[in-house]
């Protein structure tokens, strides 16, 4: 039987999510229990069950219970409860969909001035040689993007690494080229930069504030946590060097359009402390995420870590509500949900876009499905000069959608995570449509917390 709703209790709120419509109801205990039994119990039997359970409590009598029953029927009849997921019949069309390239991750430098222990890029080198992207390769990449973007106007380009500030002159040249071309070709480039902060200076900050739609500033949180995982090559920590610069940078962007972005691992399962530490440093846009790692890595998140991590998300959510009430709100990326203005269902079904709408470009111009696959040569799709040459790989990525994944089809969170990370799935199951169960458990917890926060905010 199709699971049409998801119910859970969190932080004193009784939550009911109607999965297919996206409707969210906050209910009392009576309605919560009635909804749970509604589809499996005949009306009079349900009312009599509820009367036996709740009769006499807080003025609940049969009339009240019948009213609640009628309210549930009204939600059902108006498509806000127990609604059928009719989208899965549309998936055939998704297979035929015409996709355009709309975002590139430019690996502007396969080199780094830090030696982070969990780096999937292996100190920036991506299982290969050190290299800096030339302007010519970058220019060809931007041309490729414009040529393959169809009618789409907004194009995203992330300057990524390694560490992109090691090759900042090329970043500046490419931004200038993009600005020139976007006028000629009716496009709008949204440039972004991901940096570890070591080389940040006033000039780079001013340039980014002028040109970058977003910047991602890598820091893991508390000094001891950051410095353990994010040392310089000589072993000394990076925290003291980067924190003042990140604080200045965030303020200079009016505390908007940036994220301080950390990674938590098996070694800091109390990561809520790191999030709160970053908030205490004055940052308002915070993203701290579980590490993507091969299961054998000592720092990888393990199955037995999941309960502790879920408890941390709960603790963080409750603390964020408390701080918001005190006028000290901050955003946590994974608890942010735009309930009224979020994406359409097509977007929600069709995955992250890796390998189709989103590609990564190496310093020498090879195209990969995304930054996480760079260095795994069986995933090379082509290059910026000759375009896509391995259409068959792109076709596989194109078929990624929540109904292609066994574990997503009936998951309540499928319209919020859209099937998760293909690279994670590949790492754990050697199938881009496979499942990374730990990631799924954490994603579901984050969605539950995010919706609960919305319920709490509705009362403020």
């Amino acid at each position, binding site marked *: 039987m199709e699971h049409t709703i998801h119910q859970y209790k969190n932080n004193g709120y009784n939550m009911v999510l109607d999965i297919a*419509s*996206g*409707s*969210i*109801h*906050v*209910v009392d205990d009576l*309605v919560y229990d009635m909804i749970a039994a509604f589809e499996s119990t005949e009306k009079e039997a349900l009312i009599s069950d509820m009367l036996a359970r709740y009769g006499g409590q807080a003025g609940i009598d049969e009339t*009240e219970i019948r009213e*609640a029953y009628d*309210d*549930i029927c009204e939600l059902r009849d108006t498509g806000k409860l127990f*609604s059928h997921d009719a989208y899965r019949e549309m998936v055939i069309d998704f297979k035929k969909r015409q996709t355009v390239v*709309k975002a590139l991750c430019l690996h502007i430098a396969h080199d780094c001035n830090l030696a982070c222990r969990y780096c999937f890029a292996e100190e920036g080198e991506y299982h290969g040689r050190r290299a800096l992207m030339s302007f010519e390769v970058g220019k060809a990449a931007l041309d490729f993007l414009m040529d393959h973007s169809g009618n*789409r*106007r*907004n194009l*995203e380009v*992330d300057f*990524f690494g390694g560490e992109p500030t090691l090759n900042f002159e090329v970043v500046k040249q490419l931004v200038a080229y993009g600005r020139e071309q976007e006028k000629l070709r009716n496009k709008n480039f949204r440039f*972004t930069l991901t940096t570890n902060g070591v080389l940040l200076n006033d000039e780079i900050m001013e340039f980014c504030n002028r040109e970058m739609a*977003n910047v991602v500033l890598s820091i893991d949180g508390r000094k001891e946590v950051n410095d353990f995982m994010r040392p310089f090559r000589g072993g000394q920590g990076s925290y003291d060097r980067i924190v003042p610069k990140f604080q200045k940078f965030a303020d200079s962007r009016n505390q908007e359009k940036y*994220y301080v972005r950390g990674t938590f691992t098996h070694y800091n399962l109390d990561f809520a402390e790191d999030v709160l530490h970053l908030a205490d440093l004055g940052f308002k846009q915070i*993203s701290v*995420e*579980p590490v993507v790692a091969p299961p054998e890595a000592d720092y990888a998140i393990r199955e037995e870590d999941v309960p502790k991590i879920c408890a941390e998300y709960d603790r963080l959510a409750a603390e964020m509500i408390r701080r918001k009430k005190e006028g000290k709100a901050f955003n946590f*990326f*994974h608890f*942010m*949900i*735009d*309930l*009224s*203005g*979020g*994406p*359409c*269902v*097509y*977007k*929600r079904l069709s*995955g*992250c*876009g*890796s390998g189709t*709408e*989103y590609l990564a470009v190496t310093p020498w111009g090879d195209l990969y499905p*995304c*930054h*996480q696959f760079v260095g795994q040569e069986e995933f090379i799709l082509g290059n910026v000069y000759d375009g896509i040459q391995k259409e068959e790989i792109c076709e596989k990525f194109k078929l990624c959608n929540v109904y292609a994944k066994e574990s997503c089809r009936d998951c309540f969170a499928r*319209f*919020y*995570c*859209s099937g*998760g*990370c293909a690279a994670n799935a590949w790492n754990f199951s050697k199938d881009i449509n496979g499942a990374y169960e730990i990631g799924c458990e954490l*994603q579901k917890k984050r*969605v539950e917390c*995010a919706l609960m926060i919305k319920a709490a905010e*509705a009362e403020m």
Partner: protein
Amino acid sequence: MKRIKTLETRNLKESAKKGGCGECQTSCQSACKTSCTVGNQSCENK
């Protein structure tokens, strides 16, 4: 409704009728880089 508070949400079924323009942000790009999270993104065509 006395015992039910419904939060304001975008009706996903309605969004299927005129959605799919593709102008929205790529899910993983520019913020998180390791996880696909679409629920927090904004529609560019609303």
